[in-house]
């Protein structure tokens, strides 16, 4: 491991890569702060630029954009009560009341320290967990990978939230369907190409990610612009950030909260599909219960209530890299986009990454530490200035987001057909967003689709075209059983509870 850390330090501490981390953190904070644009859009927007660099530098840049965007999302949650992404919603519960009471500076500082600590603790745990898991997963066969991908996809849907499970599953299937467009990898047969040369290579991952996230979010902002009242709130927030000092008593109060929430966040982040949103809400709820009499302060500007979700969502963001780096299976929409970018580099994440390209594996882990330090020492003092970006009128910002999204994809393919295809996908994504169908499961399904089909086909070849491996190989069998349970429990459990409740009511009336 020491050797790995040295490799990582050697790669991450080069001048070019340090610049990557700095630029990534700043750009990520900037994009994450814009209402509507979250880490997924931020990473998608950076891919065309990142592809121009070597893999380690490109991945470091995207990882830095990732933490920067999460931090930026927290900033807009605290300053204007407009969480750019779901994972920073819990931050606004106590961050915004603090800002309203003239303590925006303190709230931003606590958010920054908590994010930093969560990120660093997460990175330490990643350092320990990732190589172990990579060693274990070397024993995995294609049948197990197929089962793991099924588990990843069902888990994303299962954690989608109340009333969203079926929709998330459907969107996963739609993503898998889109991944089948183009030339079949093994037999060389055209599928769903309508005889068009432009579709022979299938739909590009970058195109789909840009159209369904960056473009559709920009289109949503065009369709429903920010009102004048919100604009005034933004202006007021930037004028009065106030002192950033945190007292010793407050630091002592939040230190154990940060430790607990970081551990919880990391563990949840490792689970496929769970991710930063669930981690932040769970940490918030846990700390509220643990706070005893001080629990009543939550939601009114409690420093504990701010530190808990902030450290948990950053630790979870780091934790979500564990399945990506060790199994090659993304645990969230954001890491799915990172996986797509890695594949564009010709890198196949998985247990072999740790052995074959240790510089990429370790430099990503080390860059997380550096990224967190940079976020703290560079972004925190700059926040009052970066926050002014919120004052740029939407009529100038939105066309630029459209332009960067379109040209980012065009610069990879140099095919204007892609611009038209993006417009079509963006319109479809807007319609689905208006109907509250989630987009992240679709991108995850799209990215895993090709690999899933390949692993299933390989598994069948190894097993002489027999499907018996699904139940004969214990590891595959149990992963599939877990996948089925993960999918069915959220669907069936509420109905069972409702039924039990009705029976109890009936028994109460009868007795």
């Amino acid at each position, binding site marked *: 491991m020491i050797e790995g850390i040295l490799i990582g330090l050697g790669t991450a501490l080069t001048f070019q890569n340090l610049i990557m981390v700095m630029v990534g953190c700043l750009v990520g904070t900037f994009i994450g702060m814009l209402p509507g644009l979250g880490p997924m859009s931020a990473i998608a927007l950076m891919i065309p630029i990142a592809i121009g660099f070597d893999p380690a530098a490109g991945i470091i840049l995207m990882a830095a954009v990732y933490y920067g965007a999460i931090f930026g999302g927290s900033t807009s949650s605290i300053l204007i009560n407009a969480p750019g992404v779901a994972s920073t919603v819990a931050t606004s519960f106590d961050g915004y009341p603090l800002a309203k009471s003239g303590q925006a500076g303190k709230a931003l500082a606590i958010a920054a320290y908590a994010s930093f600590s969560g990120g660093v603790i997460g990175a330490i745990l990643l350092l320990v967990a990732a190589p172990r898991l990579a060693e274990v997963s070397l024993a995995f066969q294609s049948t197990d990978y197929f089962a793991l991908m099924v588990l990843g996809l069902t888990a994303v849907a299962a954690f989608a939230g109340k009333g969203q499970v079926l929709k998330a599953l459907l969107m996963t299937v739609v993503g898998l369907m889109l991944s089948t467009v183009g030339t079949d990898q093994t037999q060389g047969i055209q599928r769903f190409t309508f005889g068009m040369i432009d579709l022979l290579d299938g739909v590009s991952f970058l195109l789909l990610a840009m159209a369904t996230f960056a473009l559709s979010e920009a289109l949503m902002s065009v369709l429903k612009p920010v009102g004048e009242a919100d604009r005034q709130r933004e202006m007021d927030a930037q004028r009065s950030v106030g002192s950033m000092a945190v007292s010793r008593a407050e630091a002592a109060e939040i230190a154990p909260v940060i430790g607990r929430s970081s551990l919880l966040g990391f563990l949840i982040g490792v689970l496929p599909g769970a991710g930063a949103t669930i981690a932040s809400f769970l940490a918030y709820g846990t700390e509220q219960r643990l706070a005893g009499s001080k629990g009543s302060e939550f939601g009114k500007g409690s420093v504990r209530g701010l530190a808990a979700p902030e450290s948990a969502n950053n630790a979870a963001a780091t934790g979500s890299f564990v399945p990506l780096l060790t199994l090659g299976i993304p645990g969230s929409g954001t890491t799915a986009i990172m996986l797509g970018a890695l594949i564009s580099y010709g890198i196949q994440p998985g247990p072999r990454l740790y052995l074959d390209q240790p510089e990429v594996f370790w430099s990503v882990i080390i860059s997380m530490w550096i990224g967190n330090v940079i976020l703290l020492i560079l972004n925190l003092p700059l926040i009052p200035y970066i926050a002014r970006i919120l004052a740029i009128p939407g009529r100038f910002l939105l066309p630029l987001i459209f332009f960067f999204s379109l040209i980012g994809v065009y610069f990879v393919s*140099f095919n204007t057909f892609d*611009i038209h295809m993006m417009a079509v996908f963006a319109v479809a994504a807007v319609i689905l967003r208006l109907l509250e169908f989630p987009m992240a499961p679709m991108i995850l399904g799209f990215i895993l689709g090709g690999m899933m089909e390949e692993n299933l086909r390989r598994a069948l070849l190894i097993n002489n075209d027999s499907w018996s491996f699904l139940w004969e190989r214990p590891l595959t069998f149990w992963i599939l059983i877990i996948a089925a349970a993960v999918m069915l429990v959220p669907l069936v459990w509420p109905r069972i509870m409702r039924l039990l409740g009705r029976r109890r009511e009936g028994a109460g009336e009868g007795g």
Partner: protein
Amino acid sequence: MTFSKDRIGALLMLAFCAAYWFLTYQIRMLPFQADSAFNAQTMPEALAVIGVILCLAILIFPGSDAAPDLRGYKWGLGAAMIALMVFYGYALRPLGFLASTSLFLIGGYAALGERNPITLILAAVPIVFAFWALMTWGLDIYVAPWPEALSGGTGG
């Protein structure tokens, strides 16, 4: 049965899945390819079946009964931005990067409410030139700056 967001979405997706299912039968394979246990049609067919089942499940058990509220949206503006994107796709090669992108940005700013012609030009043209210079000289990504007619038809 109420037409909730979930049900409308499920109906749209059902149409998509049905079309996808129909198209799976248009995948042309040679006889020996079609005979293998897992061929190019296997996964699409399975996905189409699962997709249709899920759509029907959402239609029968929708997660919420909330009806779509389409008031307060600026549909015309959205359509204008989509039209601009389509125009940009068609104009990029014939007009060249500089002219087409400047027109795209000016059109976007104007559609979203900027009326001052000087501001429109100043907020678009310098950004486009700076971006093109950064791409060409900074990142070595070449894109034809001038109209195809001027550069002899060798678009980037």
